[in-house]
């Protein structure tokens, strides 16, 4: 149901890591590796965030847009669905789904302003056509649950309200990974609290214990987040560009 995660289509659609990490055969033919695949999705997440800042939509719209983009690439190839078109289209679709509709021409305006590279330049018509393809790729499942939902309550309960900003930022960063496709959002929220507790040297063991959640899972997600931060340091613009270059041919 739309507000109960456990009966939602979001829950039913959660995937395994292996499924998420499968590079589409068409993309493989272009020489795109798993690392390239992840880099491009990360790069596109940043693109959505940047664009969203200009058209002024809230974080929830951004989170939904990134989720759409990542879900779409579990089923579609990047060669056929150019990420430079998919990313703004997902923001466009998410803005409608989250009741903050952004006009397509406004997106096109800011895309032109942000990128001189003409590979990024798409017209309204192309966004509208891609919108329908994305709807199809998502199998028309549009409701997405996010870790932000229960956050303030959890933080209050854990006595960590003073860390709200830090944890909010950690959650934002989880969208640079595929966690939202794999784990229930409340576990992602708890993992972020767990990471923050570690960083702040705050012992929350007893609080986590009384939550009756799968702590192995929370720790696993936490490890992935920390690994991601380590990995993130090694990312260079050249690496991203090299991965993007493999997609050069525009459809």
């Amino acid at each position: 149901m739309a507000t109960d995660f456990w009966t939602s289509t979001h829950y039913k659609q959660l995937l395994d890591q292996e499924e998420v990490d499968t590079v589409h055969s068409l993309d493989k033919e272009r020489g795109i590796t798993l690392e390239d695949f992840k880099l491009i999705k990360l790069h596109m997440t940043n693109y959505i965030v940047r664009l969203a800042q200009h058209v002024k939509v809230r974080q929830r719209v951004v989170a939904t847009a990134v989720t759409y983009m990542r879900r779409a690439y579990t089923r579609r190839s990047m060669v056929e669905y150019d990420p430079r078109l998919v990313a703004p289209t997902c923001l466009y679709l998410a803005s409608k789904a989250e009741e903050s509709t952004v006009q397509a021409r406004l997106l096109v305006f800011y895309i032109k302003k942000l990128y001189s590279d003409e590979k990024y330049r798409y017209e309204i018509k192309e966004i509208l056509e891609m919108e329908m393809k994305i709807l199809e790729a998502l199998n028309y499942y549009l409701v997405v649950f996010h870790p932000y939902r229960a956050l303030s309550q959890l933080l209050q309960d854990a006595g960590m309200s003073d860390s709200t900003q830090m944890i909010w930022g950690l959650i934002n960063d989880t969208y640079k990974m595929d966690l939202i496709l794999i784990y229930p959002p409340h576990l992602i929220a708890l993992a972020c609290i767990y990471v923050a507790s570690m960083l702040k040297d705050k012992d929350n063991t007893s609080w986590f214990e009384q939550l009756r959640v799968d702590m192995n899972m929370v720790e696993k997600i936490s490890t992935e987040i920390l690994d991601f931060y380590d990995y993130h340091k090694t990312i260079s613009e050249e690496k991203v560009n090299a991965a993007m270059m493999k997609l050069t041919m525009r459809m």
Partner: protein
Amino acid sequence: MSNRGNSSGSGSNSNISSSNRPEWLQQYDLIGKIGEGTYGLVFLAKIKSNRSKSIAIKKFKQSKDGDGVSPTAIREIMLLREISHDNVVKLVNVHINHIDMSLYLAFDYAEHDLYEIIRHHRDKVNQAINQYTVKSILWQLLNGLNYLHSNWIMHRDLKPSNILVMGDGEEQGVVKIADFGLARIYQAPLKPLFDNGVVVTIWYRAPELLLGGKHYTSAVDMWAVGCIFAELLTLKPLFQGQEVKATPNPFQLDQLDKIFKVLGHPTVEKWPTLAHLPHWQTDQQHIQGHKYDSPGLYSVVHLSPKNPAYDLLSKMLEYDPRKRITAAQALEHEYFRMEPLPGRNALVPPQPGEKIVNYPTRPVDTNTDFEGTTSLQPAQQASGNVSGGMGPHVMPTRNVPRPMHMVGMQRMQQQSMAAYNLASQAINPANIPMQRGVAAQPHQQQQQQQLRRKDGMGMPGYPQQKSRRF
């Protein structure tokens, strides 16, 4: 087995089944157009692989302002893909035609809606809807609404034409709430609800909305249910205000006046937050000017104040939204525990000897194809029952102002009506747990089957059914 030639009465379909239809449309046989609205068209079709199943296909036009799929369609798809309940319309498929960028939603087809049922009683049979039917419809409507509300979904546009009733078939007489274009999840809205524009058709609009309330709740749906309940009893809209179309705000003086006349003026004593509502303050001379202090609801609906039906109705029409009865509470009301008990098949009362009304089937314009192109031939009358399934949210040929218009449509004749005097089914709501989710349903259906009774055959004075189906 009926075929299309049969059900449309002539070979006029040749212009419909154009061969260059996209592949996804080939799985359907188009019967014709059954409705039209601002968003697009509604078609009746049969699934080729299962011709006993009818579906309604709602086609959304690409908006002209170059903004892609309409947010209304997005919202409707988004909600309907998540929800599943006996008393909520079932979205069976979504299709996209990339060539003309149109979007199609396929629903189980429902032959009737409350607008047509009420109109039939008022204008054709000149007789009240029987108590069993009123109660069964209301119970199922509340059951569906309780499911939506307990999942934090507000419908926001409940009105008789959006409440469908299944025709002939295994779900005969089952009520389905339809048209989720204005519905929304209200747990974590990004924008204040008010920003979505004015919602709810004026006659069914709750007083807190009419007075400019910005943060309204699911109680607005319950007000609409109250209005619909009264209309089922009297066959007339309860508060038939004149809408002032020009105003962009929801303030409708005439509508408020109609409400106050029947219910008396609201007071700050009974409704404390009334004082905070924008229009209550700013339009004092108009709203608070003339007082109606003798509430006369019972005389309007011809019910004794002691009647449980009246008690339930007055609780739905409570001014203060916080005191208004909820769907869950209403389902527990004494009214539903008294004879006649509500049943699953709202159209066929379980008591033998009860009169069964044959409602007309939906008119079908067989000369319109999926592109909405109409041929110049005169409209054909569809005959034969377009049965089963559930349906569209719109109906043609209205004699009351409605947001749609259809050309060349006529109502069916008596002999072509579906016969309803078949095996009836009764359920005792006291035995049936309230449905809250999908998981509860298989068990419930089983229970309903056990409770099914076979009676009520061959009512005197009504045409014998041509075929019996069990």
